[in-house]
């Protein structure tokens, strides 16, 4: 079962599965953490353009040693590189691009997701406030939002809930949740279980989930090749 995976294995599995949602010509914004790993698993032959909200379209891989450039970073403030066709612009233009609905897909992490598609991923009351950064803009306006996260907290607490308990980032914004255990679609009827990992069962996934998972169609095995 999934619990036997290391954290690194879980994260790689999630990133691999998210990559299968990509299509040729997609413009994608990737949040910090697991989403950042997605480009490593883009199927050969697909051209996917990554937008970084600090003002870059066409983010390339991390630089080789000696090629790092302090003027060339992603929204996680990590050094990156250009690709052929990269363009740079201001933060106002970058968020005009995001707000205007031009981003096909936004992949973010989450602390909580609920069955209305509400998302909480920016603050925990009583803890140090870091700020929402660009998350509220991204979830409000991307054509599709995928949450890429571990299914439960490190302590095993539920993150997929009937109703978010933390301050929310956006209302009715999440389309799909991808975890190391399952692929779950947010629908008007609530959560629908679409796929489960090969090393788990629908019962185990339901147990690890704080809200009812509907089984409206045959549940497939998560494709992870």
């Amino acid at each position, binding site marked *: 079962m999934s619990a036997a995976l290391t954290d690194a294995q879980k994260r790689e599995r999630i990133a691999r599965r998210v990559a299968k949602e990509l299509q040729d010509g997609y413009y994608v914004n990737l949040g910090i953490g697991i989403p950042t790993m997605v480009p490593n698993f883009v199927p050969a032959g697909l051209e996917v353009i990554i937008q970084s909200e600090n*003002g870059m379209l066409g983010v390339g891989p991390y630089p080789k040693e000696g090629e790092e450039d302090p003027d060339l970073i992603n929204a996680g403030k990590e050094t990156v590189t250009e690709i052929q066709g990269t363009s740079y612009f201001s933060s106002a233009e*970058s968020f005009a691009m995001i707000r205007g609905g031009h981003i096909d897909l936004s992949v973010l992490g989450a602390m909580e997701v609920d069955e209305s598609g509400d998302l909480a991923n920016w603050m925990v009351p009583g803890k140090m406030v870091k700020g929402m950064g660009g998350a509220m803009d991204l979830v409000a306006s991307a054509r599709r939002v995928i949450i890429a996260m571990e299914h439960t907290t490190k302590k095993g607490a539920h993150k997929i809930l009937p109703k978010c308990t933390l301050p929310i980032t956006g209302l009715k914004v999440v389309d799909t949740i991808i975890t190391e255990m399952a692929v779950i679609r947010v629908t008007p009827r609530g959560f629908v279980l679409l796929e489960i990992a090969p090393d788990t069962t629908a019962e185990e996934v339901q147990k690890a989930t704080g809200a009812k998972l509907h089984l409206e169609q045959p549940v497939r095995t998560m494709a992870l090749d």
Partner: protein
Amino acid sequence: MNKVVTSIEAAVADIPDGASLMVGGFGLCGAPDSLIAALVRKGTRGLRTIANNVGVDGYGMGLMLEAGMIASHIGSYVGENLLLEQMMLESKIGLKLIPQGTLAESIRAGGAGIPAYFTPAGIGTVVAEGKEVREFNGRQYILEEALTADFAFVKAWKGDRHGNLVYRKTAQNFNPMMAAAAKITIAEVEELVELGALEPERIDTPGIYVERVVVSEHKEKRIERLKLRKEGR
């Protein structure tokens, strides 16, 4: 017309205590390090700052925090400033966090003479509290107001004596909008070039937005998160 100021000290000399100040940069990238350092040396206090971040602990705007120069701050992310938490607990600083796109657009609006605009970012969240919400085409939007400032510190790659500025790669970020949104914009440039040397279509910030140009004293740019690829991958 010559907007070039010969010393960093002179460029910031008239910034009074209590001024509002926009500071360009995304994290440490594209931040006006020399102007920040000069203001720290000058010791101006009670500043109301607007910037996406507050530098990091011990560098950039983090030095202004340490020196107790900032009375209040508007930004979108302060995750690199442990000191800030303590200051907030002790009510030593006012902090207002807004979505990054709202920050960018409100500054753009400030420079563009637009007093307010509607955005979907933050609907149903704490950001919407106390703000007008209105529906357009079946969707809800928040009315957000423009941001302006007395002064802006921006950082450019190249600039000329008319104040025309060119940025490099992702070091552009918030700089162009801030240049337009402040009464007095002070541009720190890595290289001062002859008038006419910048390609007219490549100019990011036309000189009309810039009051002073000064050459940067920081020759080395700091990297916040060095990430490298393994060779051959």
